[in-house]
Structures are given as C-alpha cells and as structure tokens.
C-alpha cells in the first residue's frame, strides 16, 4: 500500500483517511504526556492548536539533539484529550490506541496515528528539535517542538469511528471467551 504524505498544519484532508492507511507525516509536531496535558488544561495551550499534531512522547534529548523519540502509551491520556480536539488539534500520535471517548471525539475532527512503539531511534532520525515549552516539567514531560520529516505512521483511529485497535481487541475477546468458557 502506498503511504499518504501529510504535512502540518493539517486540514480536512485527514478526514478522508481510513483506519489502516499508511502515512508519512512531515512538519511541526508537539510532544505532550500526562503532566503537559494537565498544565495545558490549567494554563492554556502554548502553541497554535489549529491543525496541529500532538505526539504522545517523552524523548531523550541531548543538548539540541533528539536521540530517541518513540511513542508512549496513549491510553493514559484518554480523559485528558478532549480539550485539544475542541481547540482544533487534528492528529494525535502515539501507541496502543485510545479509549471510546476519544474515538467518539475524533469523529469529524481528526485522526489517531499509531507510531511503532519502541522505535525511538528510527523516529529521532527523522526529527529536528526546534524548541520547548514547560521545560520545568523535566525531559520526559516537557512539550518539545519538533520538525518531523516523513515520520512513518499508520491510521489507528479515523474520523468516522474506524478503530483498528478496537477491531483487534474485539476479535481477541472473542478468541479468549471461546477458549475459556468459564
């Protein structure tokens, strides 16, 4: 399957993508984990959220270099994500998928892109560090401003409720309960 090239700021084009589509994402992205989400909810979003892509990631930074920047588990942010989508964020990037509240919230708004968990060097080799917000939160929790160059991703959740993780989970449950009936 040929990948779709995307560039931030993202527009309505993301609404046409479907779960399972391969994507190469370029342009500015913002890392954010638990602490950054909490702080943004309290103090406001420090970047222009319209068309933005938020990356669930706590990278290893050395000086001005990004050494390792794979995704963190997105589900931890299930209850902390709505305000970003309401503000215009179009893409969430992470690993493991997100809860049904986020799947619903993405409808007509944006997409969830799955990055390969643990592939931190591969991701970092396609990134340039541009700046930072909330550096006081520490290396893992700060918001790092990153210029991405063809980051390889797959659409995990699309804007019509298509959810690759959900589909796999439903099938896994069927398998489980057919094997262990009690």
């Amino acid at each position: 399957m040929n990948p779709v090239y995307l560039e931030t700021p993202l527009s309505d084009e993301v609404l046409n993508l479907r779960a399972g589509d391969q994507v190469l994402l370029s342009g500015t992205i913002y890392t954010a984990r638990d602490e950054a989400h909490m702080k943004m909810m309290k103090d406001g979003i420090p970047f222009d959220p319209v068309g933005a892509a938020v990356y669930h990631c706590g990278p290893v930074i050395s000086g001005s270099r990004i050494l390792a920047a794979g995704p963190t588990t997105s589900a931890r942010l299930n209850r902390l994500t709505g305000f970003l989508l309401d503000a215009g964020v179009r893409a969430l990037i992470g690993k493991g998928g997100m809860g049904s509240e986020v799947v619903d919230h993405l409808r007509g708004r944006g997409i969830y892109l799955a990055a390969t968990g643990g592939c931190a060097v591969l991701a970092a080799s396609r990134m340039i560090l541009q700046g930072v917000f909330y550096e006081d939160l520490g290396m893992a929790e700060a918001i790092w401003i990153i210029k991405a160059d063809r980051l390889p991703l797959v659409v995990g959740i699309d804007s019509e409720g298509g959810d690759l993780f959900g589909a796999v989970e439903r099938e896994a449950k069927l398998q489980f309960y057919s094997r262990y009936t009690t």
Partner: protein
Amino acid sequence: MEIIIEFIPSVLMMLPPSGEELFAAVSKATCLALREAETRLPSDVIAALQRAVANETSEIAREELGRILENIALAGRLEVPICQDTGVPVVYLTVPPGIPLTDGLLEAVADGVRKATCEIPLRPNVVHPLERTNTGDNTGPGMPEIHIRPGNCLKITVLPKGAGAENMSRLAMLLPTQKDQIERFVTETVLVAGGKPCPPVILGVGIGGTFDGVAALAKEALLEPIDHMDPFEKELCDAVNALGVGPMGLGGKTTALAVKVKTASCHTASMPVAVNVQCWAARRATQEVVW
C-alpha cells in the same frame, strides 16, 4: 617469559581489591552493562523478531516488525538507546566469597547507573512515588533495584525495564486446585494489555513461592534466552498468540515472541502466579567485574 607475562595479571586478579578499586570497577561494569543493554538487543531476541517477520501475513504487522528491526540496527550503529523509555535499572548481582557484601558495593552499582544516565545518555525516569519529583539520575531510595545471590565471580546483569510493559504485569493468588487456570490468567493478562505494552512481548511467568517472591521469579524468567521454550512454555505462548493482538496491537500472528516460566516451592494452600510483561525491546546484558 611468555608464561610469566600471562601469569602475573591472573595472580593480580585473584588479590582482593581495595575498597576504592572495587567501587570503581563495579561502577564501571554497571555503566558498561547498561550501555550494552540499552543500545544492542541480545541475538536471541533479534532472531525471534526476524522469524516473526517471516511468519506474518498481515501487511501492517510486517511493516511494524520491519520498523522494529530497522530501529534496532540504527540504534546499534549510532550507539544510542533503542527506545526513549530507557527504563528503570533492575540489577542482578552475583557476589563471590572473597568480596564483602557492603553498602559500598551497592552504592557502587548506583554510581554506575548515574554515570550511565549522564554518558549514554539515559532518560531520567526515577521519581518519588507520590510527589513525582524526579531525582534526575535514575537512582533513589530502592533504585536501582538490586537482587543479590552468591556466585563464583563478581558479575553484574542489568535488565532496564520500561514502564509501558511493566504497567501491564499482573499477579494472582490462585487456589492450589486451579492449575488449569494458569493459562487463562496468562492469556487474560495479554488480552487486557492489548497494544499498550508494545507487543510482540516476552512474558516472564513466575509460579509458586510467596506473594512477593513470585513477582521476582517472573522478572528473573525474563533473564532467560528466548531461543528455547519447553512444552509448557510453548503451550502458553501459542495460547497467547491465538488472541491475534499482533505487533503494537494492530493485529497479527505475533503477540508474544516467547513465554519463559520459573517455578519455586510454595505453601500447600497457595499457588501464586505472576506475569511480568516485557516489550520487544528485551534489554539485558552482563558484565564481569574486573580490577
């Protein structure tokens, strides 16, 4: 002459080191082991991932596994950590009879962790459990977590453990009559985890011992090479893979690369079972301490 040259260093090796020499040697070996573990995966893990690519039929699963192998190669070439979650330092120490087991010895391990954090570098992951303040150097009360046992030589094995997989680990105090429930508990752990622990995973399973002991057993099982499984381990592994969770939870045949089991005697009225989940980045390395 040649004999003498070879002979002298080995004699020196046998002399007990001074406190300072020992501290420096242990610190250095810890740092070296962490560098090796963080930047290069063991060959048995890489071989298992390569077998998985060949076995997968789903395009997405093959793409995910392909990226994992590309990432491993890149990390080794650039000598940088494979994953940004460089984990918390779990350390296994074997101590020979001639080496006194002191607080200084353990402090030397912590010193090696601090150096590794700075030099490799590692992400500072260690925080106060409630205040969540970061110590900045991957050490703190109880960290590194050090397991000690007697041995023939002073050896340091590190198992840096990331949180994504560790958070999905589970423990059950099954009844002695529930042997048939072990497989269900292991499989259920993977079902609940889904894509969160970065599958394909390796499962360390502890059976027996006590409530705390079984968790340690499960973690120790992760030190075992994964190129061999006994029939029970294979059965558990097949049951897990039948779920179809696949690489990163995106579907596929490879949910677990291997299951390794360790057992210990337990109370006649107990059957503790623990499953320690390990992501594909199964980092482990051993260094012998020399001085």
